[in-house]
């Protein structure tokens, strides 16, 4: 547990503290319900908590993009640990060392893109929660790392191509890229396969 330092988190904490002060004062003093009390309660029960919830939720959504969040389910702990390992050469670990999105590397590679990408990804995340609660919660790590699969592995190349467009002239100069261009774009050959850029995660089993 760490003290949050992000501006939105601090704003949410301040609003929540003010609201709590008003509510505790009301509970302790129990004043008559006159106009002033109603206005104070409007602040304590409405405006300040709504502000705290809004700031907290935005901060929460940002936190769900971080690797620490993804690794908080025990079945993902090995994947997160591999990304944290500075000496690891797995595809995920190499992306984790990227200065621009390294802390969010799980989200950067697994999120859906497009206009509703974030919403679709969050909805998919709820499926993960459901599966975790119903199937994987008490699954031992050794068993989980053998059984967890990508739901739609054929879609993974599309996510790679959000950054690696396959249109760049330097990229096209690589003979293997040129020869497998159509297959890579169609998702028939995975960028993250043993013969190409290597498995994304050392424990990944591949397949669907």
């Amino acid at each position: 547990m760490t003290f949050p330092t992000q501006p939105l988190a601090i704003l949410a904490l301040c609003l929540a503290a003010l609201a709590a002060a008003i509510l505790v004062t009301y509970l302790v003093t129990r004043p008559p319900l006159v106009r002033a009390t109603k206005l104070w309660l409007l602040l304590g029960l409405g405006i300040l908590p709504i502000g705290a919830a809004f700031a907290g939720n935005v901060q929460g959504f940002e936190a769900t993009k971080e690797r620490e969040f993804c690794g908080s389910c025990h079945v993902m702990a090995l994947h997160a640990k591999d990304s944290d390992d500075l000496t690891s050469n797995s595809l995920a670990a190499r992306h984790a060392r990227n200065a621009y999105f390294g802390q969010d590397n799980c989200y950067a590679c697994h999120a859906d893109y497009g206009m509703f990408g974030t919403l679709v990804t969050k909805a998919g995340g709820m499926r993960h929660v459901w599966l975790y609660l119903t199937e994987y919660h008490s699954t031992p790590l050794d068993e989980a790392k053998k059984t967890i699969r990508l739901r739609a592995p054929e879609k993974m190349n599309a996510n790679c191509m959000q950054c690696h467009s396959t249109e760049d002239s330097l990229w096209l100069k690589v003979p293997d890229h040129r020869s497998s261009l159509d297959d890579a774009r169609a998702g028939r050959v995975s960028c993250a396969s043993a013969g190409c850029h290597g498995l994304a995660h050392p424990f990944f089993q591949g397949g669907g």
Partner: protein
Amino acid sequence: MASKKMHQLLVVACACALGALALMTWQLFNPRAFPIIVAMSVGQVLGTASFAAYGLVLLADYRAMRRAARRAGYRSSEDPPPPDGSADATGE
């Protein structure tokens, strides 16, 4: 103006709101799956319910005030006219 029940409802609403605020701040200190999901589900429901309860109390209070005002109006219309017989323009 609010009845004892309404005051009790407000106390419950305040307690619920405090619980909601606690859950919402928990996710900020511990940004892991369980606290965030709990804050965005249970926390939101508790917070919304407490604000709805506050709205209900205000509505009940407003209706009670209107009822009281109406009753006071009836009572004054039943009063006998002043001894000099003068009445205002509306005849009330």
